[in-house]
């Protein structure tokens, strides 16, 4: 049986637990990150140790996945529209675990245009968001039209270390479901407001946005053929 394939964009706090979970689940991974391991990363990017300092995150995370019996390759670069086909071309699902709004939109737009399943994960302070996308469903750009230009500062707001592990785990579960053809959460946002108080997400289902430029480039138009999603118990 052919293994499912996933491209993980971001090898940091979210990408680490995400890749480890996907690798253990048997997915073949391409891990994309241009950055290097820094000392300040270690408390929340638990896939790394002090031995990894200065090394490319993508390569080191791929190495950790392989050391645990998985199949992974690291790609030391940024995800951009120019190299997206190369980085995600053979993936059954692409997961954004970066901390960059522009990259999140680039991943989502590419996935919509290529008719791929995708997950956009993010974490901030004590909570986070996980959005599941699939052909025919409302897309990330339907929900948030453009990258934030003056949003409340994510970099300044910080994130609690264990939160990225939890959100990364949820993103992995959603990615596996999508890759296996389970579209129950396609076109939905799981919003975890404060994991210290509740592990339960608010599940926000949203409709395709008329005039969405990403959907206009999709092989399956959400407005022409709205996806029928199953109810989540």
């Amino acid at each position, binding site marked *: 049986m052919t293994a499912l394939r996933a491209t993980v964009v971001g090898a940091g706090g979210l990408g680490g637990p995400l890749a480890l979970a996907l690798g253990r689940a048997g997915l073949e991974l391409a891990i994309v990150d241009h950055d290097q391991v820094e000392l300040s990363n270690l408390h929340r990017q638990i896939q790394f140790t002090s031995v990894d300092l200065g090394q490319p995150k993508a390569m080191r995370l791929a190495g950790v996945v392989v050391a645990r019996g998985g199949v992974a390759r690291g790609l030391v670069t940024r995800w951009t529209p120019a190299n997206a086909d190369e980085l995600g071309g053979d993936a059954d699902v692409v997961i954004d675990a970066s901390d960059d709004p522009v990259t999140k939109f680039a991943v989502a737009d590419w996935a919509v245009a290529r008719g791929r399943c995708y997950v956009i994960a993010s974490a*901030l*302070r004590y909570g986070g*968001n996980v959005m599941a996308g699939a052909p025919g469903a409302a897309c990330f750009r339907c929900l948030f039209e453009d990258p*934030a230009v003056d*949003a409340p500062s994510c970099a300044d707001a910080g*994130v609690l270390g264990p939160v990225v592990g939890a959100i990364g785990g949820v993103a992995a579960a959603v990615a596996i479901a999508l890759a296996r053809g389970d579209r129950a959460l396609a076109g939905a946002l799981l919003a975890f407001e404060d994991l210290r108080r509740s592990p339960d997400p608010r599940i926000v289902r949203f409709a395709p946005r008329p005039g969405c430029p990403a959907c206009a480039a999709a092989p399956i138009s959400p407005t022409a053929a709205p996806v029928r999603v199953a109810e989540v118990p």
Partner: protein
Amino acid sequence: MPSVRVPTVLRPLTGGASDVDVPATTVRDALADLDRRHPGFAAKVLANGEVKPFIRIFVGENDIGELSGLDTPIGARDEVSIVPAIAGGRDLPDRMDPARA
């Protein structure tokens, strides 16, 4: 009285409050009330009188974009949720930093 669920990134403006009761009958009024009590709040959510493109507002489970926008009526039991796009964060100031351990 309706309440507004404040996202974590805006809670510094509300003194840390996550839920704020608002004497309002529309979403627009609710934001205006919040801005009166917490100056600067509306500017984080609105631009040129419209909801910023990276923010969605819900009344209960319903996106106001599919209702009447900012003029969507709200009742005493309604909860208004503000959901911003977020990317990621660096360490919290009170992190367990190995460099300080």
